[in-house]
């Protein structure tokens, strides 16, 4: 018996990193999983590796048409929809002075509005039969980063968007829960790019290692375990919460 038996999950950003790991782990616990990403090659590969419990659909979270099609494909493929994991996200470097309008707009479009679009569709569909929405915020949505102005702002927005959606559904008696996971530094392609773009990747890496008291580096599966918990009914009382999984960075 799997912890996610009976769940149909749409995982955005499922082609890579945290999204790919959580798609695998949800499926291993019995869920049927639609992997949605703009990266078709990797997305299809993850779905194929999982097998018959998974499928892939192309999705650009910045496009409403694309969202509508992805949701329809999920329901057609698996006969329902009760879990949404909003993992698609981008990170652009930049402070309030250095970042361009373009970086700002793209970050907001993907990280915030993409998540908002997903929540809106999920609430509309799930209010009848219940469901669970998991949004990827970040510790950067709790504490600001000077060189991550747009990113921090976007993750702070996701954090409170999550609570607003949670309260709206709960107050109406709909069994749709909405929570965020706030990861620390997790070893994914996003992180590799982040370091590669720095002047001194090695120094930056060591600085981040010092931020996390535990002294181990986080892997996508560390976030996947929390996503499994939030997706399944073990967390039926949990809504509007922010789950920090960060090697202790926020403890001090």
């Amino acid at each position, binding site marked *: 018996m799997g912890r996610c038996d009976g769940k149909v999950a749409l995982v955005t950003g499922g082609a890579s990193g945290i999204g790919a790991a959580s798609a695998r782990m949800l499926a291993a616990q019995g869920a049927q999983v639609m992997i949605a990403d703009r990266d078709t090659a990797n997305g299809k590969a993850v779905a194929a590796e999982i097998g018959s419990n998974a499928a892939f659909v192309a999705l650009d979270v910045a496009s409403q048409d694309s969202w509508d099609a992805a949701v329809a494909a999920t329901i057609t493929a698996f006969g329902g929809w009760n879990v949404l994991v909003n993992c698609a996200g981008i990170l652009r470097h930049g402070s309030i002075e250095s970042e361009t309008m373009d970086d700002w707009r793209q970050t907001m479009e993907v990280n915030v509005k993409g998540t908002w679009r997903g929540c809106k569709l999920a609430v509309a569909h799930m209010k009848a039969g219940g469901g669970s929405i998991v949004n990827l915020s970040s510790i950067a949505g709790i504490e600001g980063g000077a060189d991550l102005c747009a990113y921090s702002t976007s993750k702070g927005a996701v954090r409170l968007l999550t*609570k607003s959606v*949670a*309260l709206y559904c*709960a*107050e109406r*008696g709909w069994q749709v829960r909405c929570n965020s996971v706030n990861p*620390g530094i997790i070893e994914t392609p996003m992180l590799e790019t982040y370091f590669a773009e720095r002047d001194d990747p090695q120094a930056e890496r060591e600085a981040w290692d010092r931020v*996390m*008291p*535990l*002294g*181990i580096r*986080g*892997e996508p599966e*560390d976030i996947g*375990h*929390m996503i499994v*918990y939030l997706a399944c009914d*073990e*967390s*039926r*009382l*949990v*809504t*509007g*919460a*922010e*789950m*920090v*999984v*960060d*090697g*202790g960075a*926020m*403890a*001090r």
Partner: protein
Amino acid sequence: MSGRLKNKVALVTGGASGFGRQSAIRLAEEGALVCITDLNEAGGEETAAMLGPRGFFRRQDVTREDDWTATIKAVLDRFAKLDVLVNSAGVAAAADNIEDADDAIWDLVMDVNLTGTWLGCRHAIAPMRRAGGGSIINLASVLALKGEGGALAYCASKGGVRLLTKSVAVHCGNQRNNIRCNAICPGYMLTGMLRDFLDSLNDREGEHARIAAMHPLGRLGDADDIAQMVLYLASDESRFVTGAEMIVDGGFTAG
């Protein structure tokens, strides 16, 4: 059972009732060996009977340091190591506001909830270090995050538990001893503690409805809602989680 706690040894205080009892049951189901302790011997033996050969009960007053020493020794004698500590022993006092506050109530609540948890963390670290790491789980509360006028000592004690947890987490991280320390912040739950309080009222139903309505999900949780989070924090699934406060509260603190 899928063995999420296979080969782990857990000590659960407050195991005669509520979260402590249900956590012990879940931990054992997932493969852990469990020692439960409590002041309440009848309740503790009852929980032990539910655990069968995977568990045993020992009477312990969490406010007494000598009792902690003896309890840890009993766990090590029986199971040879300690991986998980769940500090669930606790007391609440109603109608306790800053004007009517009573010295004895303040001392009792602080002693059990805060000093008891502090002692637990202190005594668990050495055996956990020898075991190569461990997980300490403290029961804070939503009242560590939001104030309630008539729960003065309780709020203060749980606010203390919340930051005690983070301090212990940072210390253990700095020591690189692989010991994690996290808090759970439950909303109001229908366990022994709240039942006793409701039973003491004339308008039991009215108060129950009022408390339920403070939670956007519109209902009170039960002990299993907390036990599921205890499982996550006790297992290696949460190996990257320390100093965190896990909120399980039906949306109480979201608004």
